[in-house]
C-alpha cells in the first residue's frame, strides 16, 4: 500500500488514471488518510458536488493483511449533507482486495465533461476506465450482477445506486460482501452523491495474482494475531452476544432504558420493540433458512451479520443492523420485521443511508404525509426516491431537508445529519459526541472504548458530570485511531474490558509496520486526525454554534424518564480543548 491511484474524471479525452507514490501520506490509512487528503487538497469553501471536491476511498492500515477484523474501508470527501469534512466507513470485501492490489487510496477528482457514466476496473495489470451508459439508474444489485457477467465472480465492487447518480445528499457508496452482494455501505454524509458527481458508477476490483500483505515481523505478527483473535472470541459481546443476535440485540435494551427514539424522537419507548428485537430477528432468520451468524468480510471472527430471507425462504436482504431496524422500525412506529427488511433492501439497492432515510420518513410522518406505523407507506416513499420523483428527491436528501420542506419543528439532526438510534436525553454522554463530532450526529464517531480510555482524554471521574465531556473526547480520539486501522469498531468492547487484547492490537500494528507505538502514540494519532477534520470544518465556516443538539432536545422531555439534555453549551465547547 505504497501508492495512490488518482483518477481525474475531467481530463481531456476522458478520465485519466495516474498512480503516484503515497509520499507525504505515508503511515496513514483509512480515516486518517481520507481526512488528510481532503483536509490538505480540497478547498474548504468548495462545492461538495463541484470540480474541487475529491472522493477518497482508503483501506485501513492493516487491511489486506492476516489481521482479523481489518476489513473496514473509509470513504471521505466534503459532505453534501453536512457541508463539512466526512469520513464514512464500511465493511465488505473491497478493503482487503484494494489493499492487496497495493493501493493506499483511490482518489476521484475533477469534474466530468459530459453525462457519460463510467466503470473502472482495477487488477494487478492496471486500471481500465470505460464508458458504460447501460448502468444508468440501475440499482446496486443489478449493477453487481452485470459486473459479475463481465468480469467473473472473483471480484469486489464499489458502486452507487440511483440516489448517488441523482446526487442526493443521503446517498451511500455500496461495497460487496463475501457473497458478492452490495449490502455493506458507507452510508453517512452523502458520499454516494460525490461519487455520482464524478460520473463513476462502479469500481470493480480483482486481486487475482496478488498475495496477502506481509508484515515486517512475521513471527511476532502471527503470535499477536492469535492473541487478538482469542481475546475477541473470549469476550461476552464479541464472542457471544454479537454472533448470536447481531447488533439488533440492542433493541430490547435501549428500549428498556427509555432511550429508544420512537415516533420521530417523541418518546423513549416503543410498544412494539419486542417484535423487532434481535432475539426475534435471529429466530426468524434461522427458521426461514437464512443465517443469524455471518461475517461481512473475510477475516471477520465476530460475525455479527446474517442473511434475512422472506416468508418463502428466498433471500431478501442481509440482516438489518440495529440502527436500520430502529430507523425504519420504532422511529416510524413500524413493528414488522419483514417491512423493515424490505426497506433495508430498497435502501441498499437505491444506495441510501438507512439512518437518514428512517429519520426522514419519521419527519414526514410527523408532518402528516403518512401515519406512524404505515409500513407500506414507508416502502412507497423509498420507492419514490428510487424513481427520482420530486417527493422522492426530498426524502432522499435526508431528514434535515425533509423537515424544512414540510415545516416540522422536531427534526433530529446535527450539522444536517440525522441522529442515530440512541436518544441523547436519556444517554446524555452520547449527545456530547453527536453535538461535537466533526461528522455531524454520528454514534460511531465516539465508539471505540479502549482499556486506556481514562488516560487518553485526561483524568476522568466517570461518575461526575464533567466526565461526560472528557469521556466523549477520549472516545472520539480512540475511534479516530481504530477507524484508521481498518478495524471493525465492534472490537471496542474486548479492548475496553481486556487490557491484553488492547495491547495485542497495538502490537499487531507494531509487528506489521515495524513501529514501536505505545498507547500514548495511538492517542496522538487519533488527535491528529481530529485536528485535521476540525481544521477543515473551521475553514468551511463551522463555529461552535454548529456543535449543538437541536433545541427540542433541551425543551421537550423524553418519556418514560421525562429527561431533557442537560449538558451545557460551555461544556460542549471544551470537548476539543485537549
Amino acid at each position, binding site marked *: 500500500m505504497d501508492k495512490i491511484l488518482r483518477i481525474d474524471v475531467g481530463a481531456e479525452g476522458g478520465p485519466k488514471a495516474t498512480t503516484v507514490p503515497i509520499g507525504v501520506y505515508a503511515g496513514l490509512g483509512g480515516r486518517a488518510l481520507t481526512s488528510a487528503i481532503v483536509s490538505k487538497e480540497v478547498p474548504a469553501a468548495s462545492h461538495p458536488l463541484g470540480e474541487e471536491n475529491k472522493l477518497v476511498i482508503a483501506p485501513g492500515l492493516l487491511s489486506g493483511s492476516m489481521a482479523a477484523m481489518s476489513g473496514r474501508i473509509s470513504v471521505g470527501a466534503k459532505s453534501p449533507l453536512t457541508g463539512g469534512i466526512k469520513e464514512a466507513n464500511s465493511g465488505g470485501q473491497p478493503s482487503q482486495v484494494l489493499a492487496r492490489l497495493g493501493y493506499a487510496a483511490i482518489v476521484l477528482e475533477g469534474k466530468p465533461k459530459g453525462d457519460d457514466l463510467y466503470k473502472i476496473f482495477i487488477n494487478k495489470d492496471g486500471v481500465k476506465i470505460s464508458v458504460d451508459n447501460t448502468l444508468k439508474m440501475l440499482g446496486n444489485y443489478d449493477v453487481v450482477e452485470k459486473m459479475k457477467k463481465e468480469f467473473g465472480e472473483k471480484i469486489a465492487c464499489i458502486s452507487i445506486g440511483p440516489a448517488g447518480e441523482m446526487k442526493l445528499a443521503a446517498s451511500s457508496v455500496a461495497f460487496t460482501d463475501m457473497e458478492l452482494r452490495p449490502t455493506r455501505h458507507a452510508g453517512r454524509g452523502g458520499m454516494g452523491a460525490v461519487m455520482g458527481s464524478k460520473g463513476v458508477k462502479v469500481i470493480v476490483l480483482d486481486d487475482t495474482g496478488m498475495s496477502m500483505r506481509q508484515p515486517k515481523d512475521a513471527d511476532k505478527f502471527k503470535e499477536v494475531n492469535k492473541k487478538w483473535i482469542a481475546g475477541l472470541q473470549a*469476550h*461476552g*459481546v*464479541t464472542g*457471544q*452476544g*454479537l454472533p*448470536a*443476535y447481531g*447488533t439488533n*440485540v*440492542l433493541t*430490547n*435494551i*435501549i428500549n*428498556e*432504558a*427509555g*432511550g429508544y427514539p420512537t415516533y420521530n424522537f417523541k418518546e423513549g*419507548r416503543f*410498544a412494539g420493540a*419486542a417484535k423487532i*428485537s*434481535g*432475539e*426475534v430477528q435471529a*429466530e426468524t432468520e434461522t427458521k426461514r433458512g437464512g443465517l443469524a451468524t455471518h461475517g461481512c468480510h473475510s477475516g471477520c471472527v465476530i460475525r*455479527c451479520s446474517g442473511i434475512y430471507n422472506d416468508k418463502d425462504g428466498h433471500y431478501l436482504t442481509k440482516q438489518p443492523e*440495529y440502527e436500520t431496524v430502529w430507523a425504519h422500525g420504532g422511529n416510524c412506529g413500524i413493528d414488522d420485521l419483514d417491512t423493515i427488511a424490505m426497506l433495508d433492501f430498497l435502501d441498499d439497492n437505491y444506495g441510501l443511508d438507512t439512518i437518514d432515510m428512517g429519520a426522514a420518513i419519521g419527519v414526514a410522518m410527523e408532518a402528516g404525509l403518512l401515519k406512524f406505523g404505515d409500513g407500506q407507506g414507508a416502502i412507497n416513499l423509498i420507492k419514490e426516491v428510487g424513481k427520482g420523483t420530486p417527493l422522492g428527491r426530498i426524502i432522499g436528501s435526508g431528514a434535515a431537508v425533509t423537515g424544512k420542506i414540510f415545516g416540522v419543528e422536531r427534526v433530529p439532526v446535527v450539522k444536517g445529519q440525522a441522529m442515530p438510534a*440512541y436518544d441523547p*436525553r*436519556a*444517554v*446524555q*454522554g*452520547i449527545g456530547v459526541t453527536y453535538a461535537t463530532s466533526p461528522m455531524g450526529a454520528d*454514534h460511531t464517531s*465516539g*465508539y471505540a*472504548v479502549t482499556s486506556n*480510555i*481514562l488516560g487518553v482524554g485526561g483524568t476522568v*471521574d*466517570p*461518575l*461526575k*458530570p464533567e*466526565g*461526560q465531556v472528557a*469521556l466523549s473526547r477520549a*472516545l472520539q480520539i480512540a475511534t479516530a485511531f481504530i477507524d484508521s486501522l481498518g478495524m471493525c469498531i*465492534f472490537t*471496542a*468492547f474486548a479492548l*475496553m474490558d481486556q487490557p491484553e487484547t488492547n495491547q495485542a492490537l497495538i502490537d499487531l500494528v507494531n509487528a506489521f509496520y515495524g513501529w514501536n507505538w505505545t498507547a500514548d502514540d495511538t492517542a496522538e494519532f487519533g488527535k491528529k486526525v481530529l485536528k485535521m477534520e476540525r481544521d477543515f470544518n473551521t475553514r468551511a465556516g463551522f463555529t461552535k454554534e454548529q456543535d449543538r443538539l437541536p433545541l427540542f432536545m433541551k425543551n421537550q422531555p423524553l418519556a*418514560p*424518564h421525562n*429527561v431533557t439534555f*442537560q449538558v451545557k453549551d460551555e461544556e460542549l465547547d471544551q470537548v476539543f480543548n485537549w
Partner: protein
Amino acid sequence: MGDHNPQQIGSAPVLNISLVIDAPLAKELYVLLQTGFTVKCLVGASIENLFYDQLKLNPQLVEEKISTIFLSGKPVDDIATATVQDGSTLALSGAMPGLVGATLRRKSPLASFRQSISAQQTSKNFKKTEGYIQIKLFNILLKELGLFFLEMGIYVPRAMFTSFIAQLTGDFYNRCRQILVNGKPVQLQSSIDWFPFLTNHDFVYLKVQTE
C-alpha cells in the same frame, strides 16, 4: 402489551396452565420472557437478595452473565443497594455491544453517560413482604435462565398469552407432550381451542415441566 401492572395479579382471576415438553421446545416460549412476565417474591429486598436468597441463582452466572440490569427502566450499578418493590420491573441482559450498550452495563466506566436515568441507591431498611414483580429476560439470558423461570412458573396477562398462542404452529402442539389446564389434561390443536378456557381470566399462570 408487554408492560403490565404486576400488582393486579393478587386480586385477578388466574388460569393455571402446565405444559409437559421436551426441553428444546421451551425456546418457543422465550418471546413471553423477553416481553415480560410476573413472579411472586419477597419485595422490599435488594436485587442481590432476590438473586441469591430467593431465586438461588448461581453467583458465577450473576457476576459473569447478568451484566446489564434495569430496575423499572433505570440502569443498575449496585445490586446490593437497588431494591425491588411491589410492581417493579426487572430487566436482565448480558453485556451489550455499542457504546450505549457498554454504557448501560453494571459499573460501567462510561456510567456518567447515563447518570440522569441511573437507578439510585435505596435504603436497605425496607420491610420485606410478599409482592409481584415483572421480569424481562433478554438475549443470552434467555438461554441461561429461560427454562429456569418457566419451570418455576410465570404469570402473563391474558392478552399477551392470547397473542403468543396466535403465532404457534401445529408443530408446537405436535411436539408438546401434554397440556394441563387447572390440573386436568386437555387436547388443544390451535389458538381457537384455548378461548373457552381463557375467558373470564385476566392472567395465566404458566408452568413448564420437562421430561
